[in-house]
């Protein structure tokens, strides 16, 4: 019954999930079993690239949940992504142990360079994976809780909220650039060796991380579907469309916004944590305000408020980015800028909206035997009401 609620009337989502599930099985097999010369061989580079895109898709999903449904435009979600990434990076750094350049059993290379005597207190515990995993969720979640509580309680909304989220991620970027913070400053955290005992650079580990990212994306998608198909999902939409009316209906709007904001920040953090071992580095550049804006462009391009549109957007824009940055790096920012303008003007519902529009048009041109209104009624039917 639950699967029915999550997946029926979500054909687009089912198609997208299906493609991801097939890719999760096929890509590692093609990568690991076929010889390099085979036309079906998937290169290590492609596996890493797709793994990255899966993490971006999860981040886009997190942004779509709050922006597309609750109307909270966060231009600072990259901050939660990066914090999750740093927490994972700290675990990976502690795994290096004596294999560092200076061979110190506990201190990291950059700490030795700075002549630190002992490990700072906030690096304690990160040698244990369970602790790091907990922190990946807890630290971004706590930041979102405090930040969201202050913002939503003061009824900061719309563009003002977007601006302070930009300020948040910018402030974090400046802080992490400082060497004294103890997160490697400019260079960030890199040169990872092992994760959970596995060599990080091997094909099998990379395939494992790729699959883990895909599973995280699927679970993230299903959890978002659970939220948006519940009564709470309807409350979020009503907050998006008429906030004060929702208050007069007896809902404490701040609590809803805060809850969904914290949940979304944790999703972004998981995406960041899976991203870091696949790219092998995390540095303060990930906090760049531009990154967070890009995420919003992915969601807008794919189609806001559909969930699967966010995944489609993350993949298509990032694919375009990979293409343009290899072909002609300087043009990418212009492409991104014009993309945002064009999508806003011409495709307010994104690629997904365009696709649905074309399909509807095709159906109108050659109408199917059954009445389309009946179709619409089944789609609209709320769970369990019938």
């Amino acid at each position: 019954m639950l699967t029915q609620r999550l997946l029926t009337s979500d054909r687009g989502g089912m198609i997208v999930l299906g493609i991801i599930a097939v890719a999760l099985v096929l890509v590692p097999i093609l990568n690991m079993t076929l010889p390099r010369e085979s036309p079906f061989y998937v290169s290590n580079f492609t596996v890493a690239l797709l793994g990255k895109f899966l993490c971006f898709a999860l981040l886009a999903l997190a942004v779509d949940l709050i922006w597309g449904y609750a109307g909270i435009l966060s231009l600072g979600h990259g901050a939660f992504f990066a914090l999750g990434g740093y927490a994972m990076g700290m675990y990976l750094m502690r795994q290096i142990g004596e294999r560092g350049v200076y061979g110190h059993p506990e201190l990291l290379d950059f700490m030795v360079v700075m002549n630190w005597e002992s490990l700072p207190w906030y690096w304690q515990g990160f040698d244990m994976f369970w602790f790091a995993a907990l922190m990946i969720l807890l630290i971004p979640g706590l930041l979102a809780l405090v930040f969201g509580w202050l913002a939503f309680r003061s009824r900061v909304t719309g563009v003002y909220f977007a601006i302070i989220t930009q300020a948040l991620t910018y402030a974090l970027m400046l802080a992490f650039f400082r060497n004294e913070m103890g997160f490697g400053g400019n260079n960030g955290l890199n040169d990872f060796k092992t994760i959970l005992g596995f060599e990080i650079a091997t094909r099998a580990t990379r395939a494992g991380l790729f699959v883990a990212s895909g599973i995280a994306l699927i679970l993230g998608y299903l959890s978002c579907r659970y939220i948006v198909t519940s009564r709470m999902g309807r409350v979020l939409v009503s907050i998006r469309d008429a906030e004060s009316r929702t208050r007069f209906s007896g809902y404490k709007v701040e609590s809803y916004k805060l809850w969904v904001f914290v949940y979304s920040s944790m999703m972004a953090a998981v995406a960041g944590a899976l991203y870091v071992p696949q790219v092998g580095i995390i540095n303060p550049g990930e906090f760049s305000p531009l990154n967070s804006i890009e995420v919003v462009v992915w969601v807008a391009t794919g189609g806001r408020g559909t969930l699967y549109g966010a995944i489609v957007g993350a993949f298509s824009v990032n694919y375009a980015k990979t293409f343009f940055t290899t072909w002609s790096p300087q043009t990418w920012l212009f492409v991104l800028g014009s993309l945002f303008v064009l999508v806003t003007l011409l495709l307010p519902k994104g690629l997904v909206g365009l696709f649905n529009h074309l399909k509807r048009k095709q159906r109108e041109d050659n109408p199917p035997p059954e009445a389309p209104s009946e179709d619409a009624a089944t789609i609209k039917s709320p769970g369990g009401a019938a």
Partner: protein
Amino acid sequence: MSIVKQALRAGRHALPKADPNFGAPIDTSHGPILYVEGISVSFDGFKALNDLNLYVDDGELRCIIGPNGAGKTTMMDVITGKTRPDEGSVFFGQSINLLELSEHQIARGGIGRKFQKPTIFEALTVYENLELATAANKRVWSTLTRELNGAQKDRIEEVLHTIGLITQRHQDAGALSHGQKQWLEIGMLLMQEPRVLLVDEPVAGMTGEEVEHTAQLLTSLAGKHSVIVVEHDMAFVRSIARTVTVLHQGSVLAEGSMDQVQNDPKVIEVYLGET
């Protein structure tokens, strides 16, 4: 009164404990359910309300009229917690001080409001709009994990009938006609099971037939609920009103039956005289 019993029954399992007043019967032993006393509100020096006093009895249907800028909407904002007054007090029954509660607590406590412009949730279906308004547990966790129970769903069906939108139940609310939107909003108010309904210009933009229908509905609601109607349409007011309060420059100018009010020289001068 069955509606009170129903509200209490719903309250026991569905209403949040955090609202101290919820589920507790509203004490109306002295008659009035709403006491608005000495309210003054000013915006940048402009006195929107000036020492306003208003008492509404339990089960009463009260019409409030007044020229533009008389403070009708501000008064509703004060009662529902949207605007905090500079002075005065607002009590719901004998013991609940509305000025200490926030909008959602007031709504949960039993005061429903219909806006001047129909504000429904256009992206949701008619059914979902009513579902949202239903007097159920409105805390985050409960809305995430629990569907409405059978009795609550039955109540939605009942209200769909009352407001005549049963065939449009799965239609997007945004696609309804203006009159239907007004009706849907009244339906949402009913789902909230309020003790007091504040209704701001319910017949604006309605056709003659719809106006008549609305008059019938509001009259039938009085008794079970206290209904306060703000309206410009004098013919409509005459058709439903028992007691009329005339506001002028933020305070009460006159109060009484429609005939009394209409013959009051002060009222004729500021309001009726103009037409």
